[in-house]
Structures are given as C-alpha cells and as structure tokens.
C-alpha cells in the first residue's frame, strides 16, 4: 500500500505547481489512506528511504545549528549528531540519531545504529546543556543500538544504562521527538524526557518487528504479523500515556512536502518547552522521574 501511496503522491508533486493546491490535494490523499493504514504501513512510512532524516528535522526546526563532535573518550560516532542552536530565539541543545540520506551517508552513520561512543557523545552534550542551563531536544530515528562485537566490547549495555539514569536527573527540560523509527533500548537511551512527542508516522517499540518475531516465533519473516500485536504506533502509545503529543502528518516523500509537518512539530515543541521552562530544576527532575516511576506499576 505504501508503494502505491508513494507513487500517487510523487506523481501529484510532479504535476502540481501551485503549492496551495498541492498541499490540499496531498492532504486529501493522506486522509483517504489514513483510514486504511495498518501498523505495518506505519512501520514502512517510519522507515521510508525518502522520509526526511533527523538531520533534516534539525535543520528545518532549529535555527543556526552548530554541530559538535566527539565523546572525549574514544571516537566521534557519526550515527549521533548534536550541538546547539536556537529554537525560536531560545538557545537549546539538540541531539539525535541520524541515518543519513544517501547510501554513502547511511554507511557513515551506520544506518542510525549508535555504538557506546555515540551514547557517550550524546551524554557529554546533554551534560554541557545542563551546565549552561539549556533545554535539550532529542530526535530519534534508530533501528536500535548497534549489535556488533566492538560495541559490546566497549560496553553497549553500560552506555545505554548510564544515559538513561543520567537523563533522569538532568536539571534542564528535556523533550524527545520520535521522527521515524524508535527501536529498543537504543531509542530509550535518548528519550528519557519530560515530554515525548511522536510524529504520527513514527514508531516506538521494544524491539524491531523483525527481532520481535525472531524472539517470539523464531521467524524474522513474520515481521508484519508482529507489528499487529506490538502496539508500536504513535496513537497507541499516546493512549497508553507513554507519549505526550502526536504530531499530525501530511504524508510526503520529500523535504518540500514535509514543510507543514515541520511547522506543526516546531509549534508543538515550543508549546511544550514554554510550559517546561517555567519550572525549576527540582520540579523538572521530579516530574520526569515520577513519570517513569508510574509506568507498569499498580501491583
């Protein structure tokens, strides 16, 4: 279905020059398909090769972004990008998992799968944000942490655990945005936040559907079936109170077509940020910690 939708929208974008009409027609198509979307379609949209990547999100939402590098320990993991910039005149720190747009970039970014040095780089930047009292916005689009020998050797588990617990007590507001795929502890390691925002067609799950199917049914090809029981869609997670906001999406396969999505997302981030910025650091920490404290309780 997604391929059909992709073709339809691309044809439309080629034909239609009037951007207002284009916008309206795209919205029409989106809404028509929307009703028919199965979780697996969301997964395909979230992972779509031509879906804007985290770097695109950052460059379209943050003004004058400056990118910084390195974990000061071992390496500069290119699957994690981060730095500082303005969000509507507010200096903020941004950190995200980047997949890259071209195949060359994909390889460089290790397809968005960070190694421990990536998580440590993220933590370094977030601690610097805390020092200078800057809010933190994280952007997540990752299949998960890299499952490789070197990553295990350098403590993938330790790095993720460290990030999670340290993010729990950062003194500044943290907002996490799921832009595409949010897989497993590798996504959690950047999303311990005061507010979690998901793009309508992003996903967040305990594991990739393939991994899930492999573990449960010893059969990675039953991936589609897995998506139907995993509850990985933004709206499902919103209903579970795991996610705080879902940003409506016009479906598109181009930066241009994502413009309205970016605008909507930016508006939502700013709204949430303004509410957080009136709180002091103690309130921010307690709220954040209590939020996770409640999940899966009640025994």
């Amino acid at each position, binding site marked *: 279905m997604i391929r059909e939708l992709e073709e339809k929208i691309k044809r439309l974008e080629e034909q239609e020059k009037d951007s207002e009409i284009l916008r309206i027609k795209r919205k029409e198509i989106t809404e028509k398909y929307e009703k028919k979307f199965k979780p697996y379609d969301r997964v395909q949209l979230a992972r779509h090769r031509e879906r804007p990547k985290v770097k695109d999100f950052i460059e379209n939402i943050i003004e004058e972004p400056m990118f910084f590098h390195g974990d000061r320990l071992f390496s500069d993991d290119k699957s994690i990008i981060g730095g500082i910039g303005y969000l509507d005149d507010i200096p903020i720190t941004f950190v995200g998992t980047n997949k890259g747009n071209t195949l060359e970039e994909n390889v460089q970014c290790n397809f968005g799968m960070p190694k421990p040095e990536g998580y440590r780089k993220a933590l370094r930047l977030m601690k610097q944000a805390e020092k200078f009292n800057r809010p933190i916005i994280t952007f997540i689009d990752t299949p998960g942490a890299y499952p490789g020998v070197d990553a295990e050797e350098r403590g993938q588990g330790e790095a993720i655990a460290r990030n999670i617990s340290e993010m*729990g007590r950062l003194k500044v507001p943290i907002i996490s945005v799921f832009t595409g795929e949010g897989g497993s502890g590798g996504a959690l390691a950047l999303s311990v936040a005061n507010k979690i925002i998901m793009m309508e067609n992003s996903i967040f799950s305990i594991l990739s559907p393939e991994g899930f199917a492999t573990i449960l049914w010893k059969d990675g090809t039953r991936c589609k079936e897995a998506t139907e029981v995993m509850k990985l869609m933004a709206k499902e997670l919103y209903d579970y109170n795991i996610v705080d906001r879902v940003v409506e999406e016009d479906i598109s396969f181009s930066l241009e077509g994502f413009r309205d999505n970016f605008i909507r997302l930016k508006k939502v981030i700013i709204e949430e940020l303004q509410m957080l910025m009136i709180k002091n650091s103690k309130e921010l920490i307690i709220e954040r910690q209590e939020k996770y404290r409640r999940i*899966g309780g009640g*025994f």
Partner: protein
Amino acid sequence: MEQNIRYEKPVISIIKRLRKFRKDPKEAALPEKLFEKCNGCGSLISKNKIVENFFTCPECNYHFNITSKDRMDMLLDGYRIINRPFKFTNPIDFPTYKAKYRENKKKSGLKEGILTVEGYLNDIKLIVVSLDNRFFMGSMGSYIGEEITKAFEHAGERDLPILIFSTSGGARMQEGIFSLMQMAKTSIAVDRYGETKNLYISCMTHPTTGGVTASFASLGDIILAEPGALIGFAGARVIKETIKGELPENFQRAEFLKEKGFLDEIVHRKDMREYIYKLLKLHGYRGCKK
C-alpha cells in the same frame, strides 16, 4: 596482580546452611538423581558434591543454574520475602500472554521471576534481589521492574545496602513498550537510591543480557559476576548475523567483560558470602546499623 581472597573463618557447610531453610531438614538440596553431567567439562559428578561445592563443578568451576531461593539460602543467615503480591496483567493485551504465563508458572512453580528479601548476612541487614531464569527466562516485565524499583526504595528508606543477582533474557516481549520502560524506571531507581549514599552491589550471573544489562545491572557501585557468566547487550546470534563473521573467544563472558573494564571482580559462588560481607563492612555497615 589480582585479588587474593583470604578469609579467616571457615565457610559454614553449604549443606548445613541449605538445610536450615528447608522444611524437612533431611531434604536439603535433595537430589532427584544421584549424578549430574557437568555442562562445563562433561564429567559425571555426584549431586551431593555439586551442592557441597555451592552448585558448582568441583572439576571445572562450572556454575550450575540455581534458583533464587537456593541463592538466598546459600547467602543469608535468615531472611523474609518482601515481594508484593503478584497479579497478572496484560498491558498491551498480547494475545498469547496469559496462556504463556500459565505455562511458565506451571513449569517453574513460580508466580514471577523475581525474589526480593530483607535478610542478614552475619550481623549485617541488607536487601537482596535475585532474578530467576526459570520463569520467562528472567525477562523484565512490569512486575519485575516494579519490584526492582521497590527494592531500591525500600533499601533507600531504611539506609540498607542492596545486592542484586541478575539473570535475564532481557525484555519481556509480551509486554511491549511497558517492558522497555522498566529499563528507565529501574535505572532511575538506582540513581535515586544512590543519593542516599548507600551501597548497591550488582552481581551478574549467567546469562544477563538485553534490557537488564542495559539498565540497573550495569549501574552498581560495585559490579561483580560469577565465573563464565554470559553478559551482554545484543544477542550473540544477532551479532553474528550483523558482522557476518565469527565471534572472538570468550566473547561476552565475565572474563571478557572484566578485561574490557566493566566488572570490578569475578567471584566464585563459594566465595560470594565472604566477599559480600567484606564489602559491606568496608562500606560501614556493621551490627545491623550503618
């Protein structure tokens, strides 16, 4: 270079210790069959010998899988279980979860894969948690996450040290995102406990993987492991597929992790009691009071 563990007082007979906790004193570590084949070296060893050796192989030091109850009985001089009552929940309405749960319960005789106790090690009071991999491979569902968290809260409120033996396949798939979130809940619990300046000892036992490695188990003030324990984040099979090559020798074993800087020490099960006691004393815990 390494730790030479020397202790003054002789170790109390493990059989005697286990017996103390059994209803029928005769059935201490009761052998269903007389001999067991060691998974480590393949030797056929008398079950009594294995038990006397703290459930390890006297030939090759292979550490047999043990129940959380045996763990407590071996380690402590007395304890009370403080787990909250368990009730089954199915947070993402996973179709086969209930049936699978019943199956695990029946197979293991357990309601869930965690045991939390408040007990004594000699004169020192402490909280001990042990996961149990007979139940859902020790995977961390909401109940386990909640119980780990409560154990830290309980210990923190009472200024007690806490010791966790982990063994886990990682996340509980059937609880989806709720299981994943237990990583956050428990990691934050460690951090909050840390503010009370009490001691958290994490001991990783075979196997500790996935979300448990990537949360509370890696956040101990002191991190120990049993010899030969498999410890890692990603599964060996997945890694093999990803790198399309062979894994290094000893990969993800306790000895490998110590080499790589992630373990303070590898402690043989028969030395555990004394090692932990020494650690607790050095952290100022003494005579039931900090």
